């Protein structure tokens, strides 16, 4: 009986898995087809293997090549991730290891801002950045990251809680300053959290569309998300194979990170999600 149920479960899971992942596989196969074949054939295997989608999509005819967009995304994302981690560690350290007045209410306030919908702050933030001339640059992204992203501050604070204070205390006895303790003792122990935060922030920032749409207007500064949209905007019939190929390219960094760092994904979510 149990064996039978097990087989049924497996079959169900496999079928469901196929349905779930089919769109992604189809995207993969479309990027190797010609546009005509994408619109006419249902098969996953291209009749004629064609790299035209990649070649033309990458070169970009009548608009900038996709390589520019990838570089831009890197310029946008990498500093954002670095600043997120640094500020997250610093602020998380401050909240978890020190007992200053108003610590509890401030911490509560910070967590409350996680629930604050971004949309509410959107327009004034945009106007603030516009008034300081920071529109059409990556500055708004960097500065917001440098101020600390509450979700990650929370994550780091939780991780700090799991590290025994005795480590700090013995270091203080030895005469170390708080910063030294942070950098030489605690940060090495924070590695899993740092990886998780970096991974999540990288993927979220890389895939972000709304914020770049609002802040970035020059085509030459478009990150991948805006560059992709440019490709479905051209006149005449959309070159679906190019679009599919470049969509795939844009999804590669998150996919690669996902497959190489899987355990950090789960660990990261679990830490923030469960405790408290």
């Amino acid at each position, binding site marked *: 009986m149990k064996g039978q149920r097990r087989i049924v*479960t497996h079959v*169900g*899971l496999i079928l*469901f*898995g196929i349905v*779930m992942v089919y*769109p*992604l596989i*189809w*995207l993969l196969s479309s990027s190797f087809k010609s546009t005509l074949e*994408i619109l006419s054939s*249902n098969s996953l295997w291209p009749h004629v293997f064609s790299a035209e989608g990649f070649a033309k999509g990458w070169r970009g005819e009548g608009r900038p090549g996709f390589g520019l967009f990838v570089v831009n995304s890197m310029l946008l994302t990498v500093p954002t991730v670095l600043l997120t981690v640094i500020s997250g560690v*610093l*602020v998380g350290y*401050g*909240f978890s*290891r*020190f*007992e*200053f007045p108003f610590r509890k209410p*401030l911490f509560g306030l910070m967590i409350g801002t996680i629930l*604050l*919908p971004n*949309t*509410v*702050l*959107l*327009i*004034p*933030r945009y*106007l*603030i950045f516009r008034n300081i001339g920071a529109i059409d640059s990556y500055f708004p992204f960097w*500065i*917001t990251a440098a*101020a*600390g992203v*509450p979700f990650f*501050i929370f994550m780091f604070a939780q991780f700090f809680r799991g590290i025994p204070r005795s480590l700090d205390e013995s270091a203080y006895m030895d005469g170390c300053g708080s910063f030294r303790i942070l950098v030489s003792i605690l940060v090495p122990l924070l590695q899993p959290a740092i990886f998780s935060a970096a991974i999540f922030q990288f*993927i979220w920032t890389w*895939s972000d*569309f*709304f914020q770049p749409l*609002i802040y970035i207007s020059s085509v030459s500064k478009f990150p991948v*998300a*805006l560059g*992709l*949209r440019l490709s*479905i905007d051209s006149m005449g019939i959309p070159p679906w194979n190019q*679009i599919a190929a470049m969509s*795939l390219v*844009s*999804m590669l960094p*998150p*996919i690669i990170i996902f497959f190489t760092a*899987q355990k950090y*994904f789960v660990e990261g*979510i*679990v830490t923030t*999600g469960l405790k*408290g």
Partner: protein
Amino acid sequence: MKTLGRHHYVGLLYISPWVIGFIALTLIPFISTIAFSFTDYSVLRPPRFVGIKNFVTMFAEDDLFPKSLEVTSIYVLVSVPLKLAFALLVAMILNQKLRGIGTYRTIYYLPSIFGGSVALSILWRMLFMGNGLVNRMLAIFSIQGPEWLGDARFSLLTISLLQVWQFGSAMVLFLAGLKQVPDFLYEAARIDGAGRFRIFMTITFPLITPILFFNLIMQTINAFQTFTAAFVVTSGGPLHSTYLYALLLYDNAFRYFKMGYASALAWFLFVVLLAVTSLVFRSSPYWLHYMESEH
């Protein structure tokens, strides 16, 4: 601790980036949104005070406002429960001792790592457009598929599907929570002869309510702010059938240059989300159980 008294003020230094950022990028904008919502603020001219005119327009004159609210509410009410249901169901199935659970988990989780990305929206367009893959596959079975995107009766459903397809992140959380349920509870229940449904209702469900709570709130807040899918796949159409609230806001702020009105819209969204969140919080004593060892 007293000997370390002065030292603790250093903590303020460490959190100073957040404090500064909070004041400049959160508090001030938050207050500004309220202030701007009482003004007429077009991009080329400075803001002009107009009292409650924007709110009057919102509630009495603008037909897109109620339409967008309606569309967004349906979207949230359909996609969030479905998403959570799938997440919980699949998590429970995967919680058994199965071979290859890691692979299944990966496959189900994969779609959700991209979040609201343009690539996925483009993919959805390719799949569901009139002559896209979905209709061509239906044609194999001699079914004439509708315009999934171009028909106002189906478009919202299709967009919701994209959201539900990404149930993986919620699922992983449920899985982690399920794993925390101690085995001995299940064994004791089984020894007592409890059926599967009874076990679920009395053991499993109560113990994962914290995760359900978290997921419900986060997913709802995110769903209310969905933008990319509606923007890229259907541009809010046809006939505003997918005109999610974030699109209404975007159009008014960045395409019609009515920053004052858009601020009023943003403020209203905040109020709605606040109400929904506090509703969930208020209802929690009735269904939220914490494990005793925590807190």
